[in-house]
């Protein structure tokens, strides 16, 4: 079937009233979660996953994707208006966005942010549409050897590039893999680490683990800081006096090159496992500053900075979807959740998706396009609602979120045991944060660890226990080489940073 016919098929699935309304609500909730500091796209998806239980696969995925796109973009509102980034993906947006607000050009900054968020998303979706099927065609030839190599590569990337320290990232990742081994072993059905508990024999589900690590931790850390009250500076903005999106065509034209560079950068970072929108915005900002003719103006309130940051963080969305759909390996926590959402629907992501569920893949593409268009409209014209949302006090918000965490965990299997899991991982998340260990590698290790294990063992069965064939397959060899390069690279940059600190 041609690509065009596939698109028609996708359109047919998505263009129902149900789906459009779902996407609308999803984008809206996503932006709210993105805009409120402390709540992120990951949490929005984790909390809304239970809602997809009773939906079809298309509608369910449409909701999750709408949340993803809204959540990444929503962070710009609070970044520009209050100087507090709503999500880690909008950290760099503050640097030029808030000075613009101080100058009285807040609306311009918001307009630029929203429009270039949209363009960044669109660019990455186009890349996704052309790259993912091609990659899937390659990936369909992957055997156990190649999959194992890819998994190992992803693990090292996540450990190396994730955050401050290589070893801490690695520890976190390996801890995740260890927790993932709890339960029945996938190849030979041996019970492992169940501590004699019947309920542990099915292992930990990704959803309670994620809710615990991110949402519960967030609540606990806020309890810790409750005594220090935060005052959100309120800036009033007059939206009625603006025509269009608040900036001129000439300004738009001057940013095209900047936007293009940031889009490409963001998409590539999205494709790489382990890093996503929260890395791309800072990196893109610093590159835009370096390449600019007037780097000294960055940080004083010019739209270049907002463009670089917002285009790049949204471009990471489409990039992150590429390995998820084509190979079945999630690159960050959000795509890990999307993978969980697909699994809930009984669909396994990976190259076979493009053969067995072509309609779903293309309806995901179309849902992404519709979400980004809706994001553009809702975010700009609903601005005043979101600004109001910023004022909801935390002591109402967090208990309500706790309630939804509980419902989400319980609804998975109608089982109180899952709530215990949530609490347990909330505690782990708290300890990790106290020890300054990043939690995202934990999630990736949790998902990629079993993948690596299964494929290693399948490969060993194929080769009758010999490890040599793993290095004979050219694709696998390529990924092993990439692994070594990424390890060397991350250790080197780590050492460099240490030197600078001393």
């Amino acid at each position: 079937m041609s690509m065009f016919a596939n698109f028609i098929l996708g359109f047919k699935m998505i263009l129902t009233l149900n789906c459009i309304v779902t996407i609308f609500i999803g984008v809206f909730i996503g932006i709210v979660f993105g805009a409120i500091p402390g709540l992120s796209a990951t949490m929005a998806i984790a909390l809304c996953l239970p809602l997809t239980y009773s939906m079809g696969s298309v509608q369910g995925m449409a909701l999750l994707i709408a949340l993803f796109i809204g959540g990444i973009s929503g962070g710009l509102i609070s970044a520009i208006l209050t100087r507090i980034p709503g999500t880690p993906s909008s950290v760099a947006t503050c640097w030029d966005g808030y000075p613009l607000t101080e100058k009285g050009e807040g609306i311009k900054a918001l307009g630029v942010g929203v429009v270039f968020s949209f363009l960044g998303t669109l660019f990455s979706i186009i890349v996704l549409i052309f790259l993912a099927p091609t990659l899937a065609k390659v990936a369909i030839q992957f055997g156990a050897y190649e999959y194992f190599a890819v998994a190992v590569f992803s693990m090292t990337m996540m450990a190396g590039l994730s955050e401050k320290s290589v070893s801490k990232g690695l520890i976190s990742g390996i801890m995740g893999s260890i927790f993932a081994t709890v339960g029945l072993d996938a190849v030979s059905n041996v019970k492992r680490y169940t501590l004699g508990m019947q309920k542990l024999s099915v292992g930990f589900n990704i959803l309670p683990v994620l809710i615990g690590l991110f949402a519960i931790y967030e609540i606990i850390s806020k309890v810790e800081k409750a005594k220090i009250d935060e005052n959100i500076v309120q800036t009033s903005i007059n939206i009625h006096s603006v025509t269009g999106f608040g900036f001129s065509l000439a300004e738009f034209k001057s940013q095209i090159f900047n936007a293009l560079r940031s889009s490409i950068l963001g998409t590539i970072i999205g494709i790489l496992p382990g890093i996503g929108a929260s890395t791309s915005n800072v990196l893109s900002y610093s590159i835009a500053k370096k390449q600019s003719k007037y780097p000294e103006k960055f940080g004083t309130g010019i739209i270049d900075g907002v463009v670089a940051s917002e285009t790049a963080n949204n471009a990471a969305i489409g990039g992150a979807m590429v390995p998820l759909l084509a190979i079945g390996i999630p690159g960050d926590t959000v795509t890990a959740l999307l993978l969980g959402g697909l699994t809930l629907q009984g669909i396994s992501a990976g190259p076979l998706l493009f053969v067995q569920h072509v309609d779903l893949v293309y309806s995901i593409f179309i849902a992404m396009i519709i979400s980004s268009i809706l994001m553009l409209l809702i975010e700009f014209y609903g601005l005043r609602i979101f600004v109001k949302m910023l004022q909801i006090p935390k002591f109402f918000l967090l208990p309500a979120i706790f309630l939804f965490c509980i419902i989400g965990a319980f609804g998975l299997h109608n089982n109180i045991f899952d709530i215990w899991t949530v609490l347990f991982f909330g505690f782990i998340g708290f300890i990790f944060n106290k020890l300054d260990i990043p939690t995202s590698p934990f999630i990736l290790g949790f998902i990629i660890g079993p993948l690596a294990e299964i494929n290693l063992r399948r490969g060993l069965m194929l080769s009758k226990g010999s490890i040599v064939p793993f290095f004979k397959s050219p694709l696998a060899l390529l990924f092993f080489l990439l692994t070594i390069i990424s390890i060397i690279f991350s250790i080197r940059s780590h050492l460099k940073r240490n030197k600078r600190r001393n």
Partner: protein
Amino acid sequence: MPRIYGIILIICSIIQLVEGVRILLTDSKNVSITTNPKENKNKKNVILCFVLMISYVFLIRYIGYVICSSILMTCLCILLLPKNFKSSKKIKIYIFVFSVVLPLVTFLFFKYVMHVPLPIGQIFSL
């Protein structure tokens, strides 16, 4: 096969240990521990929060989702309340109403719209 996996796990643990020791060695050099009296107070809150959550999961089996959640939410709201609000009576009424209404609404919503029956509690189902 499980043995091979076991070996991998052991290797992982060794890596972890080595890394852990390395971190300890490097950290002990350049980390100065700062403790201020305020932190102690917050620790108490964190422990209280955990105790609340744990007792919540214990109790939900017996007294059901709605009542249990209402109690927990009231407590959590008060825990999270910044100091300057503490004296206000209006806020406390809001909190109470909010903590009763939200569990009720979600309970009904999930039961009848999403078809997820949340636990009603053993003492009511007898």
